Structure formats: C-alpha cells, structure tokens
C-alpha cells in the first residue's frame, strides 16, 4: 500500500516578537517521501525544529504560517478540530528532551493511557496494548515500568517510553525532533537502536530532525540539509556533498580536520533576497545575493546553488 508523502510548498514561518518580525523558515519547498526515513540536519537556529512543528501545527500563537503543507492529498493548513485529532493519530511525534517532555507527577501508565485513548479501547485492552508497546521497545518488565514515575527511569528508558507514546496509535508517519540532544554516546546508541526498531514495528515513514551526523548517517535513507531557514540540499549528502554549506559543514568535523566555516561578513543584510549562505560562502558571486538559487538535480539528490551541479 502506498503511503502518504508530505508535500511542502513555499512554506514560510514568521515569529512576531517585540523587536519586529523574525523569519524562521524561508520559502521551503520539499517532498518527504513515504516509506523512507528522511533526516533533516542543520545547526542551531536553522529552522529545522520549526519546520517539524509547523507540519504538526504545534507552533506558538505568535507564529504566522504561509504556504502549503499537504499530506497525501489532504491539506494540513486549513483544518478543523476534527481533522486535527486525525493528525495526532496518523502523524506521531517523538519530542526532544525526554526529561522535560514527560509529566513528572504522572506515572508512565497515565501517559500511555492518554496516548491510547483515541483508539477507543476498553480499559483492560488498553492496559494490554500498553504492555505490548513497552515490550516492543525492549522493556523486559513492562508492569514495573507502567507503575513508575518518569524520574525513576534513566534517560534512555525515558526516551524509549516517549517512542512508545509516539507510536501508540500506530501512526503512518513519525516525526522525531532531536531525539539525541543532550544525551551521551551510550544513550545515543540506544536511541538509534530504538528508532531503527520502529521500522520493524511497521512505521513506514519517518522524519528525523537532528544535528547529530552519526545518527543521520546510520539511520536515514536520505538527508536534507537546512541553513538559515532554507533547505539547501537533499540526497546522499554525507558521501557526495554538493552544496558549499554542506561541504563546509562536513569539513568542520574533527575527523576531517576541524576547519571552521568562515564568519558572516558584517554589513550584509540578514535576510537577503538571494541565497541564505551567500554571506559566508567562499564561492559567492554578486548573483548569489540578488536571486534565490534554482533547484538543480533530480528527485534522488537535488541542490539549490548557482555553482554546484
């Protein structure tokens, strides 16, 4: 059965703050295909989390959204409350920071109960389903975990509980928002295994938002690179980088020599009409500041740059 892909067209997200308008996502057009695990990588402030939240309509009240988000043939922009309930069931979320995403005053049982409520099961059935979910995510004693409070579990266990909550209604899509942020290397490995096991659970499509390149490399089928609110490249970027930013980003890794990316030239407007990376790009030309670069390449691997391709 062919699943529904996420079609995003000219999406822009602006935040209204006291000093004016800040554009977090700038005219992003991308297709996240169903049946694949797509990684969305970028550094702090590039807008990747905002993009994820925009898809799920979890943006704060002072954010304004322009553009289209389609899921399959359904438009996600204009929807009623009823459709929104559908959203939570079909597209699941695994949020960041497990310790902050679980309610410390409620047991794991209560969390899973709440997640399973849309399925409309009876209480006994819900309990059994919760146990099965926990077993699927590697817990050997689900009964004990269900009775525990979040702070009684270790970081890795909390993350797995969050995964269980996110997948409780067997959604078609999962959006994982920075699943390994702030975790040390062992926990990262555990989280990676958990996410890989999701595939076996039957989750066909995933969007993994992260700045951890190792996770992206091991887990994802295709990777999109985001900078300054725009997606600059998508495809097998870690092995065949085409965009200057991706190349510079990879060069900054310790194994490649820790070369820092050149600094932003002062005096250049932050949101220029052209390419978002122009101010720091070593290959930039006047054209790069004036026009937005075109899409080059094919569905498997595309890049937005005047120079590449």
């Amino acid at each position, binding site marked *: 059965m062919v699943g529904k892909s996420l079609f995003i067209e000219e999406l822009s997200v602006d935040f209204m703050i006291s000093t004016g308008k800040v554009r977090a996502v700038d005219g992003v057009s991308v297709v996240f295909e169903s049946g694949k695990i797509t990684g969305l990588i970028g*550094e*702090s*402030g590039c807008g990747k989390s905002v993009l994820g939240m925009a898809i799920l309509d979890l943006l704060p009240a002072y954010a304004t959204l322009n553009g289209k988000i389609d899921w399959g043939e359904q438009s996600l922009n204009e929807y009623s409350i009823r459709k929104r309930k559908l959203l939570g069931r079909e597209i699941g979320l695994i949020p960041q920071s497990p310790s902050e995403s679980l309610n410390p005053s409620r047991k794991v049982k209560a969390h899973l109960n709440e997640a399973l409520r849309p399925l409309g099961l009876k209480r006994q059935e819900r309990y059994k389903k919760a146990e099965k979910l926990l077993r699927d995510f590697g817990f050997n004693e689900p009964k004990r975990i269900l009775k525990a409070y979040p702070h009684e579990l270790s970081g890795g266990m909390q993350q797995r509980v969050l995964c269980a909550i996110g997948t409780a209604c067997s959604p078609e899509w999962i959006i994982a928002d920075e699943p390994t942020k*702030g975790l*040390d*290397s*062992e926990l990262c490995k555990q989280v990676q295994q958990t996410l890989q096991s999701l595939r076996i659970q039957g989750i066909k499509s995933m969007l993994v938002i992260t*700045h951890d*390149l190792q996770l992206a490399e091991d887990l994802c089928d295709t990777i999109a690179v985001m900078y300054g609110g725009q997606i600059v490249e998508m495809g097998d970027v870690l092995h065949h980088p085409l965009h200057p930013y991706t190349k*510079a*980003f990879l060069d*900054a*890794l*310790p*194994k490649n*020599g*820790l*070369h*820092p*990316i050149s*600094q932003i030239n002062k005096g250049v407007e932050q949101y220029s009409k052209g390419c978002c990376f122009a101010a720091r790009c070593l290959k930039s030309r006047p054209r790069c500041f004036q026009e937005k670069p075109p899409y080059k390449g094919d569905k498997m691997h595309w890049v937005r740059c005047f120079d590449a391709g």
Partner: protein
Amino acid sequence: MQDKAKILEAKNITKIFQNGFGKKSICSLKNVDITLNEGEILGLMGPSGCGKSTLARILLRLLPTDSGEVLWKGEAITKKCGHQLLAFQRGVQFIPQRPESSFDPRLRLGKSVVEPLSFFKESWSEKNRKRLQVLLTQLSISEELLGRYPHQVSGGEIQRLALCRALLLQPEVLILDESTSMLDVSVQAQMIQILADLQEKHHLSYLFITHDRELANYFCNRIIVMEKGEILKKGILQN
C-alpha cells in the same frame, strides 16, 4: 626529549561520596594519578559517570579529597585554604560544559567578565582595559556583546566570553570540562581553533575533558582514559 615541568598533579586521589546517613557510599575515584605538564594538552576521556568531572573539581579544589594530594608546581595544596590558595586559584581556570549557566543571569556580561579581577584585589586600570581589548580581538567578540545578558547571546558566543573572563586573570592552566560538546559542529571547530591559537600566544596548558574520541585524537597531545573511577590506560600521541 626534554623533561617538561609538571604544572598540575594529582597523586593517589580517592573520593567516596556518602549517600543518605552513611548507609550507601559510592567510590567515585580510586587511587587516581594524573600529571599535566607545562604547555601540553592532556585529554581526559571516559563514559559518563566514570569520575572525570569529579576529578576536575578536585583538581580545582572545589571538592575535598578523602586521600591523596594535589600539587601545583610541585607544591602540595591539598591542605591549604583561603588566601594561601590565591596564586593557585588565579593560575588554574575552569571552563564548564553548559555555557549559559556559567554566568550570573542578573549581571550584564561586561560586568561578569571583569568581576574576577576584584577577587584578586586588582582594580579596573588602563592596563587591564587594554588587555581586555586584545582578548576581545583574539576571541572575535564584538564589544556590543558585553552590554547583553547571558540569555541574549548564543552558545558559541558565551563560551568565548567564558574564555575571555578566565584569560583576563592570566592563568597558566585551563580545565575544559566538555566545553564544546553543547556547541554545533562548525562552532566547535571555531572554538578549537581559538583554543589552539591561545595556547601558543599565552603559553597555556590544557586539561581537555571530552567524550568525543575523534576530537581528542585531533586536539590533544596525550590522552588518559578513565572508567568507573580508575585510570585505564595512558595513550601517548605523536603530535
């Protein structure tokens, strides 16, 4: 090869933490020996919970030890306190992991950066002002940032400000506790470059605590690995 002077040493350190009313004791460090030579970058690696941060705090004299000695330039400082420790406190500085929590949130960064001078009874003189200017240039910090509060600057900027604050005291040793692990990849690269430059210019020695193997391989002269409170092996790298 010339024998380098030992600037900071810990000998036979043991630290036991008591939990509750002495019911449960956790042996955090067991007979740990560590030597930092002058002008070298010593890497300290290990999984979380192995005792790296505890060792760092003991070296900084923020925690007392149950047994063993800490030596600064050959002199034992474990028993000293108060103003006897002044030279040591000035000479060894600490750059922590979480940048945003190393500054008092209620003070503007400019005030926080120059504050430590007053701990050592130094006034805000013309000489110090010039030194600050030089440091700001070396660290690529714009003076505008000094008028901001800690929550108004980014992670990379605040780590550089923490460095600036430490270097204003003209230390000889910097203990960096996972200082780059919360930073983005490119910001980390920039920070490491700055650290390398500073080491040359100011003749510093670093104790670089990290869990990133590749980073340690790239940056450090020598690496020590710890696990469960004990030193596992000492790797010596040719650099």
